[in-house]
Structure formats: C-alpha cells, structure tokens
C-alpha cells in the first residue's frame, strides 16, 4: 500500500525481505545501509536478540531522490526467518508493496526455503495479497558456498511466476543492489498503473 503525500510531495513504499532463518535478509539491508550515501538513508533499526537473530524486524528508510517532482522513499523491512516467529512475520507484511525472497543456496537449506516460501504465500493470502500479482523478486543468496545448489535447480524448485532472479553473495554485496533495484522498479511500475 503505497502512501502518496501530495501535500509534502512524497511517495512512500514498503519492501519486505522474506526467507528462511539465517538466509541473509538482514545482511542484505545492512549492506545497503553501509553503501548508501548518508544523506539518502535513515537509521538502521534492528530489533534483534542478543545473538543477533532478528526478533521482530530490521528497518531501513531510504530516500532515492525525486521522481516526477515527488520524493521517493522506500522503507525496507526484514522479517524474522525462524519458523516460530510467524506472528511477527504476519504483522510486518501489512501494507507491503513488494517482496524480496532471500533463498539460501545451500543444499541442506532447500527444505527451509520451500517451507518459508509456502509460509509467505499463506501469510500474503491472509492479508488479501496474491504472490502471483504482487511485485516479487527471488534472490539466491550464498552463491559462494561450496554446497550451493545449481541456480537452475533452485529456480526449478522456487520460481513462482517468471519473477526476476538474482544470484547473490550478500556478505560481499554481490547482487544486493541489483535485487533492490529490481523490486523498486517493479513497485514504481505498479504505481504507474494506478487504479
């Protein structure tokens, strides 16, 4: 649900990074935070446990500049990936404009990817969204690990609708901005369609 403020001439969009626990969602937005010009970003908020596992969400506001005279702001959120935090994930999906699914490429995590993806579909549906129509990007993270499955195999199992897919190593920044750009583009094109 984009928030358009004609009075302040601002567009605000919400992007949520979803995926299994320890898949690299927080690493993605931390990298974006580190590499973004200080004038274009707000504070990175992490509601995490003492061991740095996301407890509720991470939040990063980004100011991407003007489009058609409107300041364009993206609010990036991550959900907690661990299975038992489902109630929190549902809350964070409220009002979402676009979703990035961060999949873990390690063979041993494929089942966790699939479970998280099913959970995403279900939680979106509960909010009245449909994964098939919402702006959606698939990121295959941890491509540098020796146990990474072939990208084609992951695509076969995880791709839903011909969504843009990016190979990434979020800890090194590979693919992070490509993923963000792709989802931002899709959200803005959705805005162009209007109602």
């Amino acid at each position, binding site marked *: *649900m984009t928030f358009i403020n004609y009075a302040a001439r601002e567009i605000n969009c919400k992007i949520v990074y979803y995926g299994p626990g320890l898949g690299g969602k927080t690493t993605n937005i931390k990298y974006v935070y580190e590499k973004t010009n200080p004038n274009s970003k707000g504070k990175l908020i992490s509601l995490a446990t003492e061991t740095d596992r996301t407890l509720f969400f991470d939040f990063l506001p980004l100011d991407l500049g003007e489009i058609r005279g409107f300041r364009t702001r993206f609010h990036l959120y991550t959900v907690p990936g661990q299975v038992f935090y489902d109630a929190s994930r549902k809350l964070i999906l409220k009002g979402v404009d676009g979703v990035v699914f961060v999949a873990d490429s390690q063979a041993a995590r494929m089942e966790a990817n699939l479970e998280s993806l099913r959970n995403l579909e279900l939680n979106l549906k509960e909010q009245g969204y449909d994964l098939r129509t919402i702006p959606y990007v698939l990121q295959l993270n941890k491509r540098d690990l020796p146990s990474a499955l072939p990208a084609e195999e992951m695509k076969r199992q995880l791709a839903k609708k011909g969504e843009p897919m990016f190979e990434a190593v979020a800890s090194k920044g590979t693919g992070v901005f490509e993923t963000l750009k792709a989802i931002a583009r899709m959200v803005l094109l959705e805005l162009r369609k209007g109602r």
Partner: protein
Amino acid sequence: MPSQDLVLHDEEYQKIREVISRLRSECNAKVVFLVDKNGQQLAASGELESIDTTALASLAAGNVAATDSLARLIGEKEFSILFHEGERDNLHISVVGGRVILVVIFDERSSLGLVRLRVKRGSTDLAAILEVMMKKSAMPRKAAAGGSPFSEITDEDIDKLFSD
C-alpha cells in the same frame, strides 16, 4: 489488492496539522505526531529536531501491531491506549479511527490525565478528517488529483533514481 494506496492531499494535510498543533499546545506536549498503522508518518508537530521521526513512526506502528496481537491472544479486541513512562519523557500512543496512530511525547510540564483528556477530544476531530482522506484515497487517482503524475513515470525516471 487488499488495501488501496493511502493518499494525503493538501487540504486534509493542513487540517491534520491544525488539529495536532492545537493538541500539542493544549497538552503542553513536546511532540505530537500521526502515523499510519503501516509505519508511515502522516504529520508531526513540536520539538522534532532531536528525534528521528521516521524510525519513531516505524517502531510505534510495530509496537501497536504487536500489542494488537497480544490483545487478541487474550481475547481482547484491542488495547486502545499504550503508555510508556520514562525518567524525563513519556510516550502516549493511541489508535484513532482504527486506522492511524497518534503519538504524544510529553514531560513534567504536562500530565497523563491532561494528555488523555485532550487526546480523546482531538481524536474525534482527527477521525472525521481521516474519514474524508480514506474516501479520497479510494477514488481513482486521476479524478482525485486532476490527473495522476505517476501515470507518466518512464523507465528513465526510475533509472535516474539509482544513478549514483
């Protein structure tokens, strides 16, 4: 799509600003601001320089969302007011019209009783403005805005956003 985009026009924005500035002076509060339930800040008034309002908006919405869920878990519809007491500053959070969150930050120059009383009155005014805002948001954007500026977004416009 489950929820339409939220559109705030100048007319309602000015009215909201009037109500929250009045509320701030009536409450003797440091800051009053209004956030939608998804964490977007709608308007703010007061001593904002020292506060990261974007972060505050997101956290206030997260707080309300979590508390709403807690309420439902124990069979309550909602907890309509949240109050956080600090050593110097206090935070009063309430939901207006079921849709937006009104946050009042105040110190010893005010009191919880005064804030509660004024917020109750201010909320009625805000709810009426929000009603109009939601109706306008539901209108096709072209009709509401005299032509949507977004229908002409080009690929180049989007590329420019990421140029640096």
